[in-house]
């Protein structure tokens, strides 16, 4: 998805993991996945550079759709769909 498309998706839940270093954002994503339904979208906010690759890799293994990442000033918005 393009950044414009990502900005307009209907996010079901946002988890703010900007206060944690690796593996915090990944674990927050995993926990939050357990609280949303199939088809719903989770947004993970992370200030950890490694999350940009780690969360998409994890999502692929768990058969979760990785929609894309928006690079904001000082943090990332990572979108995945259950």
């Amino acid at each position, binding site marked *: 998805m393009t950044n414009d498309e990502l900005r307009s998706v209907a996010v079901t839940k946002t988890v703010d993991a900007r206060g944690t270093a690796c*593996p915090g954002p*990944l*674990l927050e994503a*995993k926990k939050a996945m357990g609280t949303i339904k199939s088809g719903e979208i989770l947004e993970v906010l992370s200030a950890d550079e490694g999350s940009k690759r780690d969360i998409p890799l994890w999502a692929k293994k*768990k058969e979760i759709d990785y929609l894309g990442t928006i690079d904001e000033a000082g943090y990332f918005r990572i979108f995945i769909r259950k």
Partner: protein
Amino acid sequence: MENKKMCMALFSGSLDKLTAAGVILSGAVADDMDVEIYVLMQGARAFKRDIATNKDQLMMAENSHLREEFIAACKQLNVKEWYQFFIDAKAMANVKVHICGLAGKLWGGVKIDDFVEWADDIVGINEYITSAQNADVHLFI
């Protein structure tokens, strides 16, 4: 489908390696792996109830002069205490912590109650070998 398995031999009792083990453990838990941790030698000392949360008792694996810098950076980055990684991982997945019987005795630990409350049991070495034989991922830290 059966979960993949990770077997970790945790030999080190140093602050930095224990933290690294906790980070790796978290990655495995995120992948829903079943994890068996075998705590050996100096690792068993760090898992003693009177040692685990006492950072003054834990040194670095190498470059000891970097200890204070390491601790300060971890604090600034909100990195969990080493043992919290293990406690959180156990709450999220099937993670078992086994203390080597010999290693425990080296540091005066003979009963499971001598170790952190989240340690599961005291075992012999063949359990570790069997776990390693059956694991998809095997680490020695």
